[in-house]
C-alpha cells in the first residue's frame, strides 16, 4: 500500500522555549479538570496512601467533611499537569517547588482550573542550552475559591535554530 511521506507533514508543535517567558507574563491554563471518586481512589491506592480520610466516605463525614477529601497530592499533580503545556512541556528538568499551600479541601465532583505568572526567567551559566524559570501557579475550584498555590522552578530549553514556539 502506498503511504504518504510523513516527514513532509508539518509538526503541530507543543510547548514553549525559554525565550518565550518574560517576568510578569500570565497564563490561563487549558482544559480544567473535574476530580472524581475514581480518580482519587486510583491515585491514593497507586501511591500507597490508604488513609480513610481519602478512601472511606463515612469516616470522612464523621470528621466533618461532606465526602472523602481528595488526596492533596492528586490535586497538586493535576494542577501541575494542567500547566505543563504552557510552562514546561518543551523540555527541561523539574528542579523544585516552594511554598505550596493547600488552602481548602477538594471533594469528588469539584472542578479545578489553574493559572500561572512568570516570577523569574534567567539564563543558566552552567547550561548554555537552557534557562531557569520560576512560576507562581494558583488553582481554583468551581466557586472561584483558591485551592492551592505554589512556586515551581524548571530548567527550560532555549530556542534552537528553526524551532518556533508553539
Amino acid at each position, binding site marked *: 500500500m502506498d503511504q504518504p511521506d510523513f516527514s513532509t507533514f508539518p509538526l503541530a508543535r507543543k510547548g514553549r522555549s525559554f525565550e518565550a517567558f518574560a517576568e510578569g507574563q500570565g497564563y490561563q491554563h487549558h482544559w480544567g479538570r473535574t476530580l472524581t471518586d475514581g*480518580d482519587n481512589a486510583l*491515585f491514593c491506592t497507586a501511591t500507597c*496512601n490508604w488513609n480513610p480520610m481519602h478512601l472511606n466516605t*463515612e469516616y470522612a463525614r464523621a470528621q466533618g467533611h461532606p465526602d472523602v477529601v481528595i488526596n492533596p*497530592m492528586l490535586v497538586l*499533580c493535576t494542577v501541575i499537569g494542567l500547566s*505543563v503545556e504552557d510552562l514546561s512541556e518543551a523540555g527541561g528538568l523539574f*528542579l*523544585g517547588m516552594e511554598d505550596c499551600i493547600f488552602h481548602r*479541601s477538594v471533594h469528588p465532583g469539584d472542578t479545578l482550573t489553574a493559572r500561572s505568572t512568570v516570577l523569574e526567567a534567567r539564563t543558566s551559566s552552567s547550561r548554555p542550552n537552557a534557562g531557569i524559570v520560576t512560576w507562581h501557579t494558583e488553582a481554583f475550584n468551581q466557586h472561584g475559591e483558591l485551592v492551592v498555590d505554589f512556586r515551581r522552578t524548571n530548567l527550560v530549553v532555549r530556542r534552537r535554530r528553526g524551532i518556533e514556539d508553539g
Partner: protein
Amino acid sequence: MTFSGLTADSGYFEDFQVGQRMRHYRGATIDEVENNCLSKLVMNTAQAHWNEDSMAGSPLGEGRLVFGLITASVVVGLASQDTAENAVADLGLDKVRFAKPVHHGDTLYSYTEVIAVDEGPGDESGEVRFKHWGVNQHGDVVCELERRVLLKRRRTGTE
C-alpha cells in the same frame, strides 16, 4: 458505623517530637500504573513520562522518566500511615527537590524526620512539619521535601 479502630492509636500530635526519625516499612516499585497511568490521569501532557520511543537515547537515561510529583506522591504515600493516620488536614509542602531521575522499574523507599511541632492556638489539633526523603533501590536520594500536617490531639481524637 463505629469509627474507633479504623485508625491506629498512634500518629496523634503528641506522638511526634522534633528529631524523631522513621524508616517507613514498605517500598514501592514504580511502573506502568504509578507513572504512565497516573501522569496521564493528572493531565501531564509531557510525553517524556509516557512515550517510551521518545526517550530513546535520552541523556537522563533510557526510557520513560517518572514525573517528579508522582515520585513525591509515592514518597508521601509510603509515609502516610506513620505521619497522617490521624490527620485533620494536609497544610502544604515546601523545599521540594528532585535530585536524580527515576525510571520505570526503580523502587522507592521513604524516610522521615520531624523537624518542627507547633502547638498552635487551639486545643484540638497541632501542626507537625516533616522532612521526607525518597530513596531508590541503590540508596540514592531522588527526592526530598518538607510537609506540614495538622494532626488531632490525643485527648480530642479518641471519640
